[in-house]
């Protein structure tokens, strides 16, 4: 990465020229803010292994400068900020939770209230709903952000905004691999996805990012080529969109971001996104399943359904509501951005010197409820890829900027052409040697006193012949690649571009109208079915123990058919049930007629061989 110093003015002008427009969802309570007032409102704590957390700097005494001046600490110690305290609610409102609850009630009744879409559970399968129930139960045992934290954070945030209403991002400009990267780091004081929007987690502090990749012409003109919006922990090609992709909505030169309610994940289009937390199978089981799946598909030519089965078979569904119907900030929006806080190079101390968490450390083993680290670091204090390799983070490291594309193609073609030349020379030399060896071998044939050298010669001929075959195959491939590079260069010269979405393997899309059109009955079924099934199992085991097996089979079949009917998956269910029945039937037949089947198989093979030989005789 080049560490060229950008002038503050030039960097700020670039950032402001392309700064995004964020569109939030009705009901969202937190918006991008400057880190300074947040840090001022926080206390700083350290959690050492096996000890209670200790407050190092009390609330109100912390500043960005002081944040970076942390002493070295023992291994395993975690520094973290604390934005909220349950006491905050009492002291702030002087009436405990009363005023906050009144405000929440008012908000619920007003147009600013969030209304969930059709149930997330109705959009996914039975097993997922069952695992979801287990996940919710596990949350009670895991470390998590206390229930009142979102309320306290809202109060603290409103207090900061009352002092001075502000909407600010943190900007960084850098060059890497020929690209100029504009980084927009958005800081939210609280992520209330779980408590506010039925999501996966809550945590204090939330860092989100949007990167814009610019190319520079020789005259110094910049033009935007790509954008990448961060959503949860996803990285790579699927995050990235080309500037001229119709999915990238813009207001002038400002890309529009639809922000997930509570989670603050960034999306290109408004809508409701189903995000599934996939729980992988244990690796031996996953390998076995994959082997059976491959055999079933390739050897038996059977249909295996969705190719995205992967190694995870249980997933927990969460909906990210990025409707874009709430407050918008930026060009043409309800509020304008304040002057950005620039992250210069070298980075300021609050970025590079503080490796701790930016909010409460909940000690959640899955980390979902722990606050994130700053823009430069991961939670484990390592430097984050988005910081040191923003180009690779969005999968752009294999894409040359337009100004370098032709040069890259021509250089690669020249490399291949010279490799082809070398291959031709090598092939010619080895081909000559093979011919001589062949002649030597022919001369030794039928000479019993030369049996040993003949065998050695035959081995060398076979080896050389194989090597030549590999070289010729490589040459043929290289020639074809060289030809396609030449055609590609011609296309680029003619101004043709690759399809804008050819790099996207799996785009994150909002739920379609059909998916949202889940009937109320299906939604009610999704809400009660798991509990109903468990209760019916208990009922059967208590009151119909004499018919336990048959009743269980009957009830499972009933729930399975009802579920499949509601979700339009009857074909899949019938297919799976049939395969299960066929496997059992086959095992019974093999068990009952094992020796008969062995004899019949031998007989069939014998008859086939006889028929084949007789056919040959008749020719």
């Amino acid at each position, binding site marked *: 990465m080049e560490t060229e110093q950008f002038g503050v003015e030039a960097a700020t002008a670039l950032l402001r020229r392309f700064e995004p427009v964020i569109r939030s969802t009705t009901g969202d309570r937190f918006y991008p803010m400057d880190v300074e007032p947040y840090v001022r409102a926080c206390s700083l704590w350290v959690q050492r292994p096996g000890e209670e957390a200790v407050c190092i700097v009390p609330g109100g005494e912390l500043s960005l400068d002081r944040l970076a001046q942390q002493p070295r600490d023992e291994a395993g110690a975690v520094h973290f900020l604390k934005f909220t305290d349950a006491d905050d609610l009492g002291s702030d409102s002087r009436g405990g939770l009363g005023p906050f609850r009144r405000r929440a009630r008012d908000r619920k009744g007003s147009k600013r209230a969030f209304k969930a879409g059709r149930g997330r559970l109705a959009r996914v399968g039975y097993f997922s709903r069952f695992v979801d129930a287990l996940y919710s139960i596990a949350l009670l045992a895991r470390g998590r952000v206390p229930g009142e934290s979102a309320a306290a954070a809202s109060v603290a945030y409103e207090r900061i905004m009352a002092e001075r209403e502000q909407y600010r991002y943190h900007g960084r400009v850098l060059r890497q691999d020929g690209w100029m990267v504009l980084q927009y780091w958005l800081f939210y004081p609280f992520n209330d996805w779980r408590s506010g929007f039925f999501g996966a987690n809550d945590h204090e502090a939330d860092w989100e990012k949007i990167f814009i990749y610019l190319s520079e012409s020789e005259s110094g003109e910049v033009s935007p080529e790509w954008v990448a919006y961060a959503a949860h922990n996803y990285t790579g090609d699927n995050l990235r969109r080309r500037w001229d992709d119709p999915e990238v909505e813009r207001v002038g030169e400002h890309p529009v971001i639809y922000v997930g309610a509570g989670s603050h994940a960034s999306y290109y289009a408004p809508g409701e996104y189903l995000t599934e937390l996939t729980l992988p199978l244990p690796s031996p089981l996953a390998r076995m399943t994959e082997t059976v799946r491959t055999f079933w598909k390739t050897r038996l030519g*059977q249909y295996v359904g969705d190719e995205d089965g992967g190694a995870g078979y249980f997933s927990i569904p969460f909906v990210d509501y990025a409707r874009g119907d709430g407050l918008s900030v930026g060009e043409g929006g309800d509020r304008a951005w304040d002057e950005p806080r620039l992250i210069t190079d070298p980075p300021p101390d609050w970025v590079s010197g503080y490796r701790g968490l930016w909010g409460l450390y909940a000690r959640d083993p899955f980390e979902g409820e722990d606050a994130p680290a700053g823009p430069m670091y991961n939670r484990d204090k390592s430097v984050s890829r988005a910081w040191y390799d923003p180009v690779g983070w969005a999968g752009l490291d294999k894409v040359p900027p337009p100004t370098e594309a032709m040069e890259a193609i021509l250089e690669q073609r020249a490399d291949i052409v010279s490799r082809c030349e070398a291959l031709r020379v090598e092939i010619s030399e080895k081909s000559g040697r093979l011919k001589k060896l062949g002649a030597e071998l022919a001369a030794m044939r039928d000479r019993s006193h030369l049996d040993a050298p003949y065998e050695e010669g035959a081995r060398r001929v076979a080896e050389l012949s194989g090597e030549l075959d590999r070289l010729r195959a490589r040459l043929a491939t290289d020639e074809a690649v060289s030809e396609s590079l030449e055609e590609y260069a011609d296309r680029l010269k003619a101004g043709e571009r690759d399809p804008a979405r050819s790099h996207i393997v799996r785009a*994150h899309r909002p739920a379609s109208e059909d998916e949202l059109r889940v009937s109320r009955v299906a939604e009610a079924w999704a809400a009660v079915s798991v509990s109903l099934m468990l209760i019916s199992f208990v009922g059967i085991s208590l009151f119909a123990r004499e018919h336990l097996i048959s009743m269980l089979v009957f009830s499972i079949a009933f729930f399975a058919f009802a579920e499949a009917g509601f979700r339009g998956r009857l074909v899949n269910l*019938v*297919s799976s*049930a049939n395969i299960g*029945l*066929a496997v059992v*039937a086959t095992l*019974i*037949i093999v068990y009952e007629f094992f020796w008969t089947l062995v004899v019949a198989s031998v007989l069939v093979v014998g008859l086939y061989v006889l028929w084949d030989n007789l056919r040959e005789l008749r020719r």
Partner: protein
Amino acid sequence: MLLILEVIGLVLLGGFEFLQVQRGGIDLGGQRHQAVEVAVFALFVPSAILTLLAALSFLFLHRRGWLLAAIAQGLNLAVCLWLYSWFQPAYVYPIMAYCALMILYLNSQDVRAVFRPRQDSRASHGN
């Protein structure tokens, strides 16, 4: 064709079982067990009708034909397995073998491709 062959097979098998009992007379003493076996053969009637309907739907490449045929095979196998657990009548084995092969055939990629519903042009969303 295979489905019609299956219906014909079921009818012939049912007829053969029935004739065997007829030949021995309805003697509720010695032939009772066999008579019950033949009586429960009637359980295959609904699935035979379904199979016939499926065969007709297949002729017109109607997508529901596949589902009907699959349900019919599943019903046949379920009845066979149930009968096997109670009486183990001899006729269940050929029916089980035929149905297992039919299920493999119906689930083969080529057949599924013909009867698969048209894909929505919108790509599904992912993680």
